[in-house]
């Protein structure tokens, strides 16, 4: 039995003056993949942000790798450096003078002030490996602002895999990826879990992919409407409960 990497108890979060997440509790087991699904505005990204300590909690507790998240969202640097996060997008208006390799290199550095040339060789080698692993090696000299949406997502994943971690949080990271890139992305997540013991939490709207890859599904619509294995959670009745009566569940036959 794996130990829980994340324990969330009775978490409530307010956003823009209203309760966006209400009394949510769940655990993420080590090396598991958990998907958060739900309609737009259900509080999925808010849940993720609060879990990472980026938004203040109204109530409840969050424990990551055995360490309690403080009320102002602080975690010790040693725990922070075990967490990787892929946001929905980056602010890249206009020409942004930052190469892909430089960006991925920033993922290598632990928190805290450092001179830019600190551990230059180690960083360079780790960046090459990470870019190779995510199929982005040809993009290393491109500007971040020159990439397509799908390429940017792959580069953001390189930022995460450039150093060993234990928890990977993805906020709709696979949206915009073409079919081969999506498959490769999913394969890499599987490798990270099985070979390196990573735990993955991702927000997704792709229910077919969630059904195929996740161990646990959290159906969120402000409150946790359902949770459990995909077979238990993604049933037509529960999906209608979660998304409303207009939801028409469709399952790809080729995946059985």
């Amino acid at each position: 039995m794996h130990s829980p990497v994340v324990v969330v108890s009775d978490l409530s979060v307010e956003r823009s003056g209203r309760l966006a997440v209400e009394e949510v509790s769940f655990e993420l087991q080590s090396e598991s993949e958990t998907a958060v699904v739900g309609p737009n505005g259900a509080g999925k990204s808010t849940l993720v942000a609060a879990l990472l300590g980026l938004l203040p909690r109204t109530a409840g507790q969050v424990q990551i790798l055995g360490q309690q998240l403080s009320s102002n969202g602080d975690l010790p640097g040693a725990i922070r450096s075990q967490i990787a996060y892929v946001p929905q997008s980056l602010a890249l208006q206009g020409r942004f003078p930052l190469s892909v390799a430089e960006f991925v290199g920033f993922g290598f550095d632990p928190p805290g002030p450092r001179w830019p040339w600190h551990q230059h060789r180690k960083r360079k080698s780790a960046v090459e490996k990470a870019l190779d692993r995510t199929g982005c090696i040809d993009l290393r000299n491109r500007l971040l602002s020159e990439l397509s949406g799908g390429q940017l997502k792959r580069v953001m994943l390189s930022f995460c895999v450039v150093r060993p971690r234990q928890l990977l949080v993805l906020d709709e990271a696979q949206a915009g990826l073409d079919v081969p890139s999506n498959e490769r992305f999913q394969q890499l997540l599987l490798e990270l879990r099985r070979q390196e013991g990573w735990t993955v939490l991702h927000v997704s709207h792709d229910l077919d992919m969630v059904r195929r890859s996740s161990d646990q599904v959290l159906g969120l619509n402000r409150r946790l409407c359902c949770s459990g294995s995909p077979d238990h959670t993604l049933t037509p009745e529960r999906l209608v409960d979660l998304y409303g009566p207009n939801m028409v569940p469709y399952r790809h036959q080729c995946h059985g």
Partner: protein
Amino acid sequence: MVDIQALALVLAEPFMQRALIGGLLTGALGGLLGSVAVLRELSFFSDALGHSALLGITVGILIGVNPTLVLIPFAVVFAILVNQLVERSSLPTDALLNIVYSTSLAAAILFLSLVESYRGGIRQLLFGDILGVSSLDLIVIGMLLVAALIYLSLSLRAQVLLTLNQELAGAVGVQTRWHRLAFIVLLAVVVAVSIKAVGVLLISAFVVIPACAGRLLCRRFPLYVIVSSALGGTCALLGLLASGLTNLPSGPSVVMVQFLGFLIALVLSSGIFRRPSTTAPDPQL
């Protein structure tokens, strides 16, 4: 034709030497902080800070304290308050900054109209007087440049990640609130210190134009910061030399040279001077 003798005479004057060093340091400082400010869409913020500085000077005159002493704390408090307003308000940032800077300007002009002895100095406040830069000013600007270089070098990762995505920065351990505030306070101090040399109306050009030129030319972040700073310093130096030779106002001369530098960067980045590809054309095409 450049009159070399006239140039040599001008350069021999101590006030001109101080002005050149002051211009070089102020330009380099503006370009350095501008490189981050422009990416973080704080260009308009530096403009608002410049206009608020006029109000700070006016308050100093009204309460009978040396305006230079009032200016730095005033700019810092003003920057923190505006930052709070922008963070907490649901209105767009550019609209809020417009309200702030036009109100500061209006208040400053109203207060200045009450002070008989300062009416003649408005032009100096608006366009700066780099020739009036003292040795103490040079020491302060120099120390500020060193402090800004150290802070930006040590926090380069934090500055970049904060600019790209605040949540990503927070998730990997960047103290986002602290770094946002530290940068804004640093920008406020730089603007306050540079006002004497550059003037209220032109201070934002020192922050924005060299950084935009650098942004067009560079593909590596540290190089972009260095080029922006170097362009800021070089343009200030050339502008002051041109001003000394032609007897034109110094601040506007520097801004015109900065603009020329920006145009050159624009042309260079447009690909006109890039070598054509040497690969053979595809025979099937």
